[in-house]
């Protein structure tokens, strides 16, 4: 479904026509590529452009929330070969916003990348697209052809002395390629094993050259920011949390989907836009920023507004903006077991604590879920996560640890019940009904 509800739509303005509105002429009709034209015609300086993005306080939409303008300013000016790379390897469980951006408005991503390339002085760029959404890869290639034919890509773009070309690269089933240096390795034709940082991509990126890498949504926001001005964009949201944001709401709501709202919108409002709880059941817990973010129990979550600061204050992360909603039919041990399996399955395997620890975590949680838990297991799990966190090359080990710690912290009694009684606190029949897979009354 294209779009259900928004407040202050920017990124989603083009989504209303669904699959019929993605092509170049539609984009141009909504004012697309106007910002690129303006920048080229006015020969806007790179510094001014970056300053405008800084003003917007656009923070990276890939999960870490790093200020985009600041990141661009790290690119060495003099380097002859530089790259911009877009991270569309959306694989963080619960996140599906980039897929819709690529589906309904790929040209906003392209325009954002061209402008970024202009700002940092790159001549070549790649968009790394999650392998599982191959149709989006194909659509993006089509969009690139359109842009190239219209003179937005290639040599001397629109008659200026600025040249830039852009290509699509697809993944093929590895979550870790969402991590930016794993992604760069993957473009280089290797396993997506993250690199130790420093050096950061701005100094040593793709093919060892300075590289700016941003999330799809981050790039897509750029034309809008330049269109309305950095300050106006910032003011849409709240201080330190500029603009609007796409939230992917999944799980036990009536209308799962993407919702664009200004930063700072109350969670309650977002939940309401998503149609409220499925079957009117009670909210139990929310993972507010993708599966790597710590889970928050209902009461804490209901207090939050949807922005980096509020969610951090509650003890979790806004992350990628993936809001996983769980109602009272969920067994938290089983939910954690599934997440732990994911990190075990997706660890790239290079760092000892992650390679060995992710399997250990999964096996212990699996045991507990299957009635083989031991009283000392919860302490053991916490100790193993202690030994994993902050001790690896990338943050996947932390991502594997956060759910374990937060699930145990907030739902300890449920785990203890499981260990003691060797079964779920939530009746399996209730759990089964929660998914909505089976029509009421069917076996």
């Amino acid at each position: 479904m294209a779009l259900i509800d928004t407040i202050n739509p920017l990124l989603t303005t083009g989504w209303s026509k669904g699959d019929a509105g993605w092509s170049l002429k539609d984009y141009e009709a909504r004012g697309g590529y106007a910002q690129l034209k303006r920048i080229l015609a006015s020969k806007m300086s790179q510094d001014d452009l970056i300053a405008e993005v800084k003003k917007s306080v656009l923070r990276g939409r890939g999960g870490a929330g790093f200020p985009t303008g600041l990141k661009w300013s790290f690119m060495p000016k003099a380097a002859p070969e530089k790259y911009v790379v877009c991270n569309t390897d959306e694989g963080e469980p619960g996140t599906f916003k980039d897929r819709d951006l690529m589906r309904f408005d790929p040209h906003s991503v392209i325009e954002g990348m061209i402008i970024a390339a202009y700002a940092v002085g790159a001549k070549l760029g790649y968009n790394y697209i999650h392998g599982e959404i191959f149709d989006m890869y194909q659509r993006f290639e089509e969009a690139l052809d359109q842009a190239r034919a219209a003179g937005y890509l290639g040599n001397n773009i629109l008659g200026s002395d600025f040249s830039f070309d852009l290509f699509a690269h697809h993944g093929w089933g590895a979550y870790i390629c969402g991590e930016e240096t794993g992604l760069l390795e993957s473009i280089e034709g290797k396993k997506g094993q993250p690199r130790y940082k420093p050096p950061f991509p701005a100094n040593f990126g793709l093919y060892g050259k300075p590289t700016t890498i941003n999330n799809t949504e981050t790039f897509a926001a750029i034309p809008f920011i330049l269109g309305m001005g950095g300050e106006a964009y910032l003011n849409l949201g709240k201080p330190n949390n500029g603009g609007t944001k796409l939230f992917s709401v999944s799980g036990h709501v009536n209308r799962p989907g993407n919702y664009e709202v200004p930063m700072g919108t109350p969670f309650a409002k977002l939940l309401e836009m998503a149609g409220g709880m499925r079957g009117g059941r009670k909210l139990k817990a929310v993972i507010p920023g993708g599966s790597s973010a710590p889970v928050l129990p209902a009461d804490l979550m209901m207090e939050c507004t949807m922005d980096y600061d509020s969610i951090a204050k509650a003890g979790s992360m806004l992350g990628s903006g993936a809001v996983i909603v769980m109602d009272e039919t969920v067994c938290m041990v089983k939910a954690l077991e599934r997440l732990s399996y994911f990190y075990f399955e997706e660890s790239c395997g290079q760092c000892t604590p992650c390679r060995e620890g992710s399997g250990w975590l999964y096996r212990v949680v699996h045991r507990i879920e299957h009635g083989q838990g031991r009283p000392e297991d919860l302490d053991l799990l916490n100790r193993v996560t202690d030994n994993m966190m902050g001790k690896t090359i990338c943050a996947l080990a932390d991502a594997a640890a956060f759910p374990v710690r937060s699930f145990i912290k907030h739902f300890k009694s449920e785990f203890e019940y499981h260990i003691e009684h060797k079964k779920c606190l939530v009746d399996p029949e209730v759990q089964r009904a929660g998914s909505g897979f089976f029509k009421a009354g069917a076996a």
Partner: protein
Amino acid sequence: MLEIEIDGKTLQVADGSTIIEAAHQLGTYIPHFCYHKKLSIAANCRMCLVQVEKAPKPMPACATPVTNGMKVFTHSELAVNAQKGVMEFLLINHPLDCPICDQGGECQLQDLAVGYGESASQYQEEKRVVPDKDLGPLVSTDMTRCINCTRCIRFTAEIAGFMELGQSYRGERAEVMPFIGKTVDTELSGNIIDLCPVGALTSKPFRFSARTWELSRRKSVSPHDGLGSNLIVQTKHDKVMRVLPLENEDVNECWLTDKERFSYQGLSSAERLTKPMVKQGGEWKEVDWSVALDYAAHALRDVAKTHGGAAIGGLLSPHATLEEMYLAQKLLRGLGSENIDFRLRHSDFSADGKRKGTPWLGMKITDIGRLDRVLVVGSFLRKDHPLIAQRLRQSAKRGAQISVLHSADDDLLIKLAARAIAAPSQLPAMLAQVVKAVCAIKGVAADTAVAGVTVSADAQAIAESLASGSSAGVLLGNFAQQHPQAATLQVLAGQLAATLGGRYGFLGEAANSVGGYVAKAVPGAAGLNAAAMLKDPRQAYVVVGAEPELDCADGAQALASLTKAAAVVVLSPFKSQAMLDYAAVLLPVSPFSETSGTFVNTEGRVQSFYAAAKPLGETRPAWKVLRVLGNLLDLSGFAFNSSEEVRAEALGGQPEFVSSLDNGIDGGTLNLTASAQSLERVADVPIHFADSLVRRASALQQAADSAAPTARMNAATLAKCGLASGDKARVGAGGTATMTLPAQLDVGLPDGVVRIAAAHADTLALGAMSSVLSVEKA
């Protein structure tokens, strides 16, 4: 320089250093597995985590660059907890089978587990099991023990130059492996055994034969190529069980070639000669030393008396020690012969008598890495000098431009700046073209002989590369030294280096290619060189350490002349059927591991060593045998009490480097005439056939580099001969001998050449390494 503090101690370190390097400077040990100073940084094991002031998380010492004023704590609670945590993870899936593991006693994991591991693990889940891999005849695997440090992978990719190992799959299922069905074939493969910090990769030949604490260890020097790698020879009950590198940054760094590491198996070959033997009435008899020595002395004295000393020829292995060569030449000269040579595979001796000094590398080995432009002339570099190839590979990665001029375009696994591949007869003219082009670029007049050549595009490209740098070097390989116009190549290399303001020299073929000159094991003014004394057969020969039919430029001719001779006295650690056919007396002498002696390596470095084991059976060190022979022949100057005394006399002291090293030739003339005939032979000496010891090393003989000889040609030449790759080819040399070999496509060969390995019993009958062949479909 930066100033930092480690555990309260202040020190100055170079910009760009990492914490682990800084700690090393201080002598502070930081536990680690994946880090290795010669390999790229992986930072994956996480064992080296330390605390850095102001950093919220522990930092990997191997990958964290130091900054000015940094305070590092390697033993703080944060650091030690992090290290212990990692150790626990490393052990949860490890089999902990130390008692049956070959690495037991020399395992980094075992050592560190004692310091950082907890006694009882809380891991009670199922352990991972990883299938073993077949890496070939040299390296054995037990992959369940692997801790995925990836050192071995990085070694093949970075040091050996071609990624033969990888880490496949991911996460906990990650496995180190070669490509499906492939083995590890690099000539440097054994180093991954040393690099593996656990018992996942161990030595196949050594496997289960001894525990490390049962072994005695002795320093030694490799008896193979001219590099003179430093060795640790490990023995048990006077048998060599294992050979390891002795780290010497100036020579072999911390590496060994497989040849150097595994050739020790030849020491216990069934062909070891353990008792003196004499041939009486066509029958071989084992006799006492005194009988054998008398017999040998008599035979030589008889020939000298009846035919004159010049009727005796001395063929010395270039792998013999300095002391052996020195005494052998003294003995021959005492008998009145000047026919002495150790340059058995050479065919051009025209520089003899004109040399300004001993030919050598022309620089220190470490200087090779400082050259920014290098031309390698006539060398199967990767197989003849694997560790020098390795140095050049690293140079190329740092930006040095390496070029090649040769008759075969073997993949050196080095990024080349330029290359010219030509038939052997064309090599001198090709090098002359490079000289002419460089002279043109530098605006200096070229030698008149050179001025006449027409510069090809390939030569021009080499010249441009060479002239664009600031320190150039020209290295003449074994093939250039064995070339029929070797002296011309040498003079041209000299001119080229002079024009470039650079250096030039020889990549020593054998352990004592420099030492042989120093020991005066070369013919005097009236003497015959190795080729001449075989072409013009002698009545008697003294053979020291060599198998002339395999070690000489023309093995067939050597065999014929030796067979014809009245008396052949052989001093050898091995016996062979050929020897039994031509020799009159076989004197069992010690291989390098059972004698003291000296090798002078290609840079002139004097490296002496002691015996690592007692001589096998009745074997005696050759220097002692020669001493006794000298005494029996009543020759003066044989009163030596030790090999050190021999060395002192030969060297005139005990220098670190020999003196009088000089590649110059007085009045050297250029011979650029090319007898361009079709089907020239290109003969390489395969790495595992170069000397009598390695030829008998059983595991090496099963390695990929020991494949049976073939007749290799490029596609055009194959077609011309009516052959397809894989067909049987009848190969003839000069009409007489013919043999059948499989034809094989080699796209790296120039037109009109056939590449057939020498030093191999199967191709011995073809005769000279440099020759014209006829090839047709068999």
